[in-house]
């Protein structure tokens, strides 16, 4: 579920790699913005055709006739395609901004509710321009977003990059560039190359650096998952171990009879191991089929968590428990099961080896 939060943040906010002025993190003012032309040109030299999204960010106010709220203005290059996919997918009402739209804005449904406005409503946005003057612009709400991201849904107002640059009297200025490379397994190399190209005054970092809490959250969730999976597998292993061990120990007297009748120890040992393996594998197959059916069912009919309120959604989580069927699960189960079976079989085998037929016949 943390994965969904991270994916949400990447797709609808920062991208996989974030490039910004080094000082922008601590002082999010226009004076710490980047020059669009030279910056994008240098970035292009490194990344080629990799999709990127240049954004201009500025703190401001949004007002209706009756109320107002502090927000973050986000100027986007509306001609972008893949980079705006996440935001486009979040549109729940109205239409997305057209590239030549110099009046329209997109706001989160949550912000719209706070302001008490709907599609088509007229609003005023205010901010401080680069030269320190207070500027304002009348805009209309074109669409409402539901991004499952509190920052997007209740704090952001999206508009065209040109529109915002004009409002802030800062032509050619951008605050951030987000990159969306096709391969995300070599982000560190990309960051290193970009850092070299862009110099000291520009910070280049992956989403993990930009959203450290999410990265830690993901790491912690991985650890929690590992612990939970380990406990589950341990329980499965102990369960199998217990069943096979008990079933074998219950039959020690029977093995004693076989020994007394002249059955070689090696034959009884093989019998115990073979029976344990058959018992385990039959259980494995039944369990695997049953588990797969359950997983498939919950894949088609996800367990809906929205009944517990908007909590998960507020944190950017998908409002249902995701299911996945990976071959790896079956392999892990198979290995643990085989291991548990062999250990559980080895105990009666060992006991039998130590006992003579008389002791085996009296074994309780």
């Amino acid at each position: 579920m943390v994965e969904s939060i991270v994916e949400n943040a990447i797709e609808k906010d920062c991208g996989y790699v974030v490039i910004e002025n080094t000082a922008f993190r601590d002082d999010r003012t226009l004076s710490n913005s980047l020059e669009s032309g030279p910056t994008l040109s240098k970035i292009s030299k490194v990344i080629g055709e990799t999709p990127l999204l240049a954004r201009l960010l500025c703190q401001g106010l949004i007002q209706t006739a009756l109320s107002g709220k502090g927000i973050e203005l986000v100027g986007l290059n509306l001609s972008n395609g893949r980079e705006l996919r996440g935001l486009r997918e979040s549109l729940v009402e109205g239409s997305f901004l057209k590239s030549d739209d110099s009046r329209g804005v997109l706001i989160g449904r949550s912000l719209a509710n706070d302001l008490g406005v709907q599609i088509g409503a007229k609003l005023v946005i205010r901010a401080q321009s680069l030269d320190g003057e207070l500027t304002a612009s009348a805009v209309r709400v074109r669409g409402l977003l539901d991004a499952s991201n509190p920052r997007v849904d209740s704090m952001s107002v999206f508009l065209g990059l040109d529109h915002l640059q004009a409002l802030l009297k800062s032509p050619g200025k951008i605050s951030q560039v987000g990159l969306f490379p096709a391969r995300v397994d070599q982000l560190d190399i990309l960051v290193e190359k970009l850092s070299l190209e862009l110099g000291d005054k520009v910070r280049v970092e992956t989403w993990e650096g930009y959203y450290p809490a999410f990265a830690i959250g993901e790491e912690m969730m991985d650890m929690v998952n590992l612990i939970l999976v380990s406990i589950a597998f341990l329980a499965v292993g102990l369960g199998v171990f217990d069943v096979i061990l008990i079933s074998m120990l219950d039959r020690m007297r029977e093995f004693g009879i076989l020994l007394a009748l002249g059955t070689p120890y090696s034959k009884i040992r093989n019998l115990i191991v073979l029976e344990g393996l058959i018992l385990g594998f039959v259980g494995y197959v039944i369990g695997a089929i049953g588990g797969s059916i359950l997983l498939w069912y919950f894949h088609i009919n996800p367990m809906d968590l929205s009944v517990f309120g908007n909590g998960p959604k507020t944190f950017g989580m998908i409002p249902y428990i995701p299911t996945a069927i990976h071959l790896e699960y079956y392999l892990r189960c198979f290995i643990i099961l085989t291991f548990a079976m062999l250990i559980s079989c080895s105990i009666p085998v060992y006991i039998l080896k130590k006992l003579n037929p008389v002791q085996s016949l009296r074994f309780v």
Partner: protein
Amino acid sequence: MCLLETLNLCKVYDAKGLIPLTAVDSVNLRVERGSFSVLSGPSGSGKTTLLNLIGGLDRPSSGAITLAGQELSSLQEKELSSFRLHSVGFVFQAYNLVPVLTARENIEYVMILQGVSESLRNEKVQDVSKRLGIHELLDRMPSEMSGGQQQRVAVARALLGDPEIILADEPTANLDSHNSRLLLEMMRELNETQGTTFLISSHDPMVLEMSGEKILLRDGKVLDEAQTSH
């Protein structure tokens, strides 16, 4: 002709923290081939232990056992297992049939281990089951048979392994008098018609009455005739 001989046979149970218990004490015994001998004595006199030692189910603490010319103490586990398979037939007090096998499978089990062909096995099973009156029970599981029926299956199993000797430990202990008599008559008949050697441990008067040689045990020792008469 002597089939079984024990020399100064001893079995001492020496559990940690407990006083060592001598279950079999310097037993010298001779059993003739084709005999129908009974080991008699009160409970705890060492009858079962002695039978277990003779049958290679347990190892003696000291002394020697020679059965059909084979000295048991020199045998390794694997050889001892083979000895039990080929030379000894067991009839236990608690029947000890394999619970998951039918009567037929129980009877056949020893022969399968011995590598007897299927056709010969079928022939032998049919023959012995008719003689012991269990031919209609062959497809039953042990849990579906009475004690007497189970014990007859156990005798059939012991017999068909073609052993040198059949060791029967209290075979009538769990049977009523009618079934006890039937079983004993059957064993006696097998002894007389086939020359099968029987060594039976029991304190059942009926068994003693039908026996040939009687060997009396007390406190792990074999009593001689003079001692017996007292």
